[in-house]
């Protein structure tokens, strides 16, 4: 017996020693000043998903852009913390009356991470490279944003491609670049600010001229260099130094010759934690120092525990769609109006959405030019809803209503809770609801094909232009909405081709009024997606477009 006990005791002793050691390691306190810490302590930020490429051009997702935004600059960008378009590599810019010639005065004294000098030729090398892409690069999975903003290529290899709207880029002077397009598009100048069009060193472009996408069409592998931190070079405050795919960790380091204000913290690490709760616990445990997409229910507990949860501005919309083809009753405007009166949107904003959220009166936030104060508003009034339904002959309306499960979106943090409120409201107005819960992967196809009469969805803007919201849904027939309204379709077509910003503003305002009278769906809310930071960091200015510039961060 004695031997047994001594074995057990020895085991316990080893464990205890390990515990003490672990504690000792964990409790080493940093007494250093913020400035010292900036040089020694990495800032670790957890993102909900992996980046896909270090060449922003191939990407379409926010996680890639979060990383590449630190490495590259674009011609234009959005102001810190706001949605106004301001200069980035371009000090200033102007357009001709037709909106077809864009002249950019460029920043001087800008150096790429590989030592190359930045000038107008570098800008044109990038734009011309994109325009002249061939083969598999013309697949919409590889050059999605190019096609969305600038149309096709110098030589379209497929009839399915849109015609090219990009015409040319000329280095008129060393620091003056002129970009011409065929005709004005409402996607400009916003498009010049898209992270996908980050300016890369001409030396990299030259070195990678022969790079190819490989793999099957539709399931492409991006070119090798786009996965290699050593192969890319931008002009941003950070340069990529490591990408450990096994650890889902991208390491960025301050670029000492950055042309603007140098990054505060020397080492920035962006790691993936896909689980929302795991992100929160990692912050609480001190394993990370910030994370994106905080669940609204976690905001107050995090604040109470001393964490920083700065409020972002709003740049999105959540709506309840009325699919008219799928349900005859919804073709009746009075029914759509009645349902809109039945929903208590203020309650959703007050009880579910994060602080700073507001009820939406139209399909775009008021920070965008073209928002109208004169749209018809549908106040919450259950009795009125009942009366209108009875009047329309649908007193005993029965309708299917879909919502997504296992997902949170920046504009829709708790789909089930939002659904529950709307369902209860509609039932109070005498509507019978057949609910259908679908995982996100099934939800989008079904709602998209018009398979749900009522459903919840939303949109976060790419850049500050109303067309990026309205045009997304109402520019043409869409099976998700199931209506044909030529007045709205034509109106959006006209505004998309109107180069005069003042005229566009009026046209958007009129369209918003028209859309809210036609009522294809009920805009519910604009809500800021939450981001959290530990107490010991001065966080970067948070952005309504989720375009944080991490070089602003410093240790306290």
């Amino acid at each position, binding site marked *: 017996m004695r031997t047994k006990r001594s074995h057990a005791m020895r085991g316990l002793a080893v464990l205890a020693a390990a515990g003490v050691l672990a504690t000792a390691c964990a409790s080493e306190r940093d007494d250093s000043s913020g400035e010292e810490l900036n040089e020694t302590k990495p800032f670790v930020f957890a993102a909900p998903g992996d980046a896909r490429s270090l060449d922003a051009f191939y990407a379409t997702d926010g996680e890639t852009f979060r990383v590449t935004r630190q490495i590259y600059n674009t011609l234009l960008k959005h102001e810190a913390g706001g949605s106004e378009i301001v200069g980035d590599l371009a000090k200033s810019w102007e357009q001709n009356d037709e909106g077809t010639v864009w002249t950019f005065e460029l920043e001087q004294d800008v150096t790429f991470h590989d030592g190359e000098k930045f000038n107008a030729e570098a800008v044109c090398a990038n734009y011309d490279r994109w325009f002249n892409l061939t083969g598999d690069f013309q697949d919409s999975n590889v050059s999605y944003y190019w096609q969305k903003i600038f149309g096709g290529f110098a030589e379209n290899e497929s009839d399915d491609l849109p015609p090219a709207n990009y015409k040319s880029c000329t280095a008129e002077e060393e620091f003056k670049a002129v970009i011409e397009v065929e005709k004005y598009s409402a996607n400009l100048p916003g498009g010049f600010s898209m992270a996908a069009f980050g300016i890369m060193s001409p030396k990299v472009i030259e070195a990678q001229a022969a790079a190819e996408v490989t793999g*099957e069409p539709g399931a492409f592998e991006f070119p090798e260099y786009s996965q290699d931190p050593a192969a890319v070079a931008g002009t941003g405050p950070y340069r990529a130094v490591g990408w450990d795919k096994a650890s889902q960790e991208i390491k960025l380091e301050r670029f000492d010759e950055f042309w603007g204000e140098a990054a505060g913290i020397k080492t920035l690490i962006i790691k993936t934690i896909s689980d929302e*709760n795991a992100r929160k*616990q990692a912050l609480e445990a001190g394993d990370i120092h910030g994370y994106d997409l905080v669940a609204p229910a976690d905001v107050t507990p995090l604040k109470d525990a001393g964490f920083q949860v700065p409020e972002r501005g709003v740049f999105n919309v959540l709506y309840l769609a009325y699919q008219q083809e799928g349900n005859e009753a919804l073709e009746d405007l009075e029914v759509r109006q009645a349902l809109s009166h039945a929903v208590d949107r203020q309650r959703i904003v007050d009880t579910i959405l994060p602080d700073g959220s507001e009820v939406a009166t139209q399909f775009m936030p008021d920070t965008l030019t073209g928002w109208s104060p004169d749209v018809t508003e549908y106040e919450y009034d259950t009795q009125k809803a009942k009366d209108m339904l009875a009047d329309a002959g649908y007193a005993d309306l029965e309708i299917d209503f879909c919502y997504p499960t296992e997902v949170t979106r920046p504009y829709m943090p708790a789909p089930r809770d939002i659904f529950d409120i709307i369902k209860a409201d509609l039932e109070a107005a005498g509507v019978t609801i057949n609910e259908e819960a679908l995982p996100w992967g099934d939800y989008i196809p079904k709602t998209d094909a018009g398979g749900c009469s009522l459903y919840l969805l939303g949109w976060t803007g790419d850049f500050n232009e109303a067309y990026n919201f309205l045009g997304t849904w109402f520019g043409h027939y869409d099976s998700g909405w199931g209506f044909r309204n030529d007045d709205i379709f034509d109106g959006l077509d006209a505004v998309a081709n109107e180069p005069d910003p003042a005229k566009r503003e009026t046209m958007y305002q009129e369209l918003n009024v028209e859309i809210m009278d036609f009522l294809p769906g009920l805009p519910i809310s604009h809500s800021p997606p939450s981001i959290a930071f530990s107490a010991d960091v001065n966080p970067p200015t948070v952005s309504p477009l989720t375009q944080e510039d991490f070089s602003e961060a410093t240790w306290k």
Partner: protein
Amino acid sequence: MLRFVVRRLLQLVPTLLGLSVLLFLWVHALPGGPEYSLLGEDATSEQREQLRQSLGLNDPIWMQYGRFMGQLLQLNFGVSLSTGQPVMTEFLNRFPATAELAITAMIIATAVGIPLGYFAARYRGRLLDTGAVAGSLIGICIPVFFLGFILKVVFAEHLGILPSAFRQTAGLDATHPTGFFVLDGLLTGELDAAWDAFLHLILPGITLASIPLAIITRMTRASVLEVLGEDYVRTAESKGLQQRVVRGRHILRNAMLPVVTAMGLLTGSLFAGAVLTESVFAYQGMGSFVYQATQTRDYPVLMGFIMLIALIYVLVNLLVDISYSLFDPRVRVR
């Protein structure tokens, strides 16, 4: 022995072939399709159709299967739709992580479970036994995510002595020749990194070990109880053999056969458990990757990973069969 192994290896061919058919049908019976996760919310139905076309998703299912098997025979598992990287690269990136975690869990489960089961049986009906039986019942019942959550709250947040996420501290510069982080640290002499990786294994390891630990404890206990009643044990004890010899040669060796079988079968549950454990601890392994792949309908990843995991599963069980002969030489003859 060699013939036994070769015959068993040949038996794998129809098993894996059958599995590939079932898997293929299952994956393609999932509603929705990858085009939705690939193109985002605002793509038009024409764009989606075009993508389906280019992915060959509109071809007859047998044609798609033929193409899949053709690639498989060249060891080509295709490219992940969501990361754009070859499935094999993704697998090799993530396999060491999960293997390291699973091995840790298995070490915890056997190192604790076998002695615990043995002593529970030896001191049947006493406090240790009751405790072990009750504890193992809890181990089986407690949901993995809940246990992980509790462990994190206690050890990572309140006590602050163990990390709550990742395989090593973010930003730690360490070289990884094998991808097994603890081993890497020992091989390269970066002992800090090895220790750091070891600390990161403790909480997820315990979480993942909970179910196998409970099963091994119960199996060992039951098996030892049975052996204890055998005549040869009584004979061995009565002829005055040392406790150590009776325990090792007569009791444990005979009691191990069902336990080892269970351990082989448990590798399957370890990989399944890893899916949740890895998500809870933001541990970058195969489990969390497969979980994401089901969300995005990443067909190549689902097919490739599950085939590879199945291959590992049958190979482990082959090893288990071979190990029988170590415990019971009679098995070898047949």
